């Protein structure tokens, strides 16, 4: 199992899921991770290690979707089953299979929810976008662009955030996906326009940071924060009214499905099939909120808490 980092609870959970499943199936599991987000060189080294180690299968959440491809090819040539988790490779068929969240859809869900929640006010909303990093990793771009699409904003170049011209967007800032960055980015945006009323956040830690910034100026109740991930602290934060809604993804499922697939490959030589209509196996995404709106399917916080990770 090779994850982007092993500091993000998402991947930690994924690892736990995989470990549990592997024990159940009697598979030996070794985990590797990049040092920081975007560190694909370490991932390449990890793949090489797996080859040297004679692994049967690799579960991979790629930090760079195309740079990793030659290494993946080398592994497949060595007869290893490579399954991409969470993040599809580019091209997607570079891996034997992909078990992933549809990040664009995840963004779209919260976008739609936010638009519906605001109703007519959506036309003159003031939106703050809290993204991941200046290097614009794919996940961040997909979620961001998905949110804007869902909200009904023209995203211009869909492979890039920050090029939108819609006046409702106050600005983009980067958070490194943690609380500290979330708070600073929110403060910066608030200094630009203190009347922001919708905040998109790349993940829940960033959302929690943004909330602190809003709380500091007493606006925590007039601003709608939406996020993606569905980690337990995040879902709890919905219950506490910190976040309005979040799109929940299922790393445990990805991991355990992946382990099962490798088991199957090792035992029977059968590769997993993608979800119908998509070129990857969609592990699903669900909108978690206690304030459901019409036209957007959602689950309640309670259900969310049952399914949450981390």
């Amino acid at each position, binding site marked *: 199992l090779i994850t982007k980092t092993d500091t993000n609870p998402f991947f930690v959970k994924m690892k736990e899921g995989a470990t549990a499943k592997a024990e159940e199936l009697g598979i030996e599991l070794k985990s590797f991770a990049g040092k920081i987000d975007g560190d694909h060189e370490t991932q390449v080294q990890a793949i090489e290690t797996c080859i040297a180690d004679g692994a049967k299968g690799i579960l991979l959440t790629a930090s760079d979707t195309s740079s990793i491809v030659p290494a993946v090819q080398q592994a497949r040539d060595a007869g290893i089953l490579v399954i991409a988790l969470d993040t599809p490779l580019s091209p997607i068929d570079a891996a034997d299979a992909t078990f992933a969240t549809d990040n664009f859809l995840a963004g779209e869900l919260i976008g739609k929810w936010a638009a519906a929640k605001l109703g007519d006010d959506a036309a003159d909303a003031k939106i703050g976008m809290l993204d991941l990093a200046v290097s614009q990793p794919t996940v961040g771009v997909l979620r961001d662009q998905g949110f804007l699409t869902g909200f009904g904003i023209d995203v211009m170049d869909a492979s890039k955030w920050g090029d939108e011209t819609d006046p409702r967007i106050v600005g983009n800032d980067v958070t490194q996906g*943690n609380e500290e960055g979330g708070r600073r980015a929110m403060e910066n945006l608030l200094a630009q326009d203190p009347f922001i009323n919708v905040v998109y956040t790349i993940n829940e830690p960033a959302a929690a940071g943004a909330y602190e910034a809003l709380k500091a100026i007493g606006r925590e109740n007039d601003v709608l924060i939406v996020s993606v991930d569905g980690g337990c602290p995040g879902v709890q934060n919905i219950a506490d009214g910190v976040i309005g809604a979040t799109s929940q993804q299922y790393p445990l499922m990805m991991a355990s499905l992946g382990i099962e697939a490798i088991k199957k490959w090792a035992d029977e030589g059968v590769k997993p099939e993608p979800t119908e209509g998509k070129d990857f196996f969609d592990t699903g995404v669900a909108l978690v909120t206690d304030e459901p709106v019409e036209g957007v399917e959602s689950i309640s916080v309670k259900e969310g808490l049952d399914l949450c990770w981390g």
Partner: protein
Amino acid sequence: MSESASKGQDYESSLSGANQQVAEFEKREGFVYKLQHALHTNPALVPLIVLVLSIIVFGLLLGSKFFSPFALTLILQQVQIVGIVAAAQSLVILTAGIDLSVGAIMVMSSVVMGQFTFRYGIPPGIAVVCGLAVGTGIGAINGLLVTRMKLPPFIVTLGMWQIVLAANFLYSANETIRSQEIAEKAPILQFFGNVIQIGSARLTFGAIFMLILFAVLTYALTQTAWGRHVYAVGDDKEAAELSGMEANKVLVSVYALSGLICAFAGWALIGRIGSVSPTSGQLANIESITAVVIGGISLFGGRGSVLGSLFGALIVGVFTLGLRLLGADAQWTYLLIGVLIIAAVSVDQWIRKVSG
């Protein structure tokens, strides 16, 4: 003594009549001279000037959006963590060392404070003390490795950085403790997040702590023997030892103090972000070193004033907020901060040069 003068070699006979006049030099007066003298004796003045200039420039460009008590105190808030860590970093850099473990110690301490409270149910006050002790302890280990094993500080703290960070993730199991929970059960952890509001100016306890910390360190460095020794050890460790200072004790105390300050930064961090998150503080190293160097402290040790680091941190804070308010996007801001780091230090060098 006059009798002994006659004992010397014959050519020295005239010495007893030697003119006792000492060299007299042109006394230059006036404003320029006084300014030059001030710049020489107060190394922190240059970054202060750069800071004031940049506030004025952004104030002119942005008007009241920037030049308001709200925005200005916001900068203080945003800078507080980096500022506190930069204080720790300054101490170490003054001894010609470098501390790459500051960020890791900060996070580790905050995690200890949080986990001790919530995992083991230790009273939050004691958990805070434990967190501070852990930070000090790691710092002291750095110091001992530097002095006993005679390892370069860069290596020691590079290794320690990786060790502490990994230990932090392993220990915390990457678990975040949420702000709401902390506010409910252990508000003392968020102590530094309290705010004094004066009009639209908002001073957090963390920001005030940072200012007090710099004041105390400035006092300690300029007014006590320990401070003189820190400078001397950084300047030339061998000379300091030969002239009778306990260089190794000074070094250990500096690293331990640096660890303690970082632990305080960890506590302040909880106040700032509300929660306890093991993934924070990844940029603390580079940001604190940047602040220190913009603040005019030499990386070769022994020169500069700790106050400069405060101004250095504030300069970066002013530029970041100012540029964002001017509408520069995140990538351009990043680029411009790079330009401004070089420019700020160039101005510093230039002022020092024209002031002779």
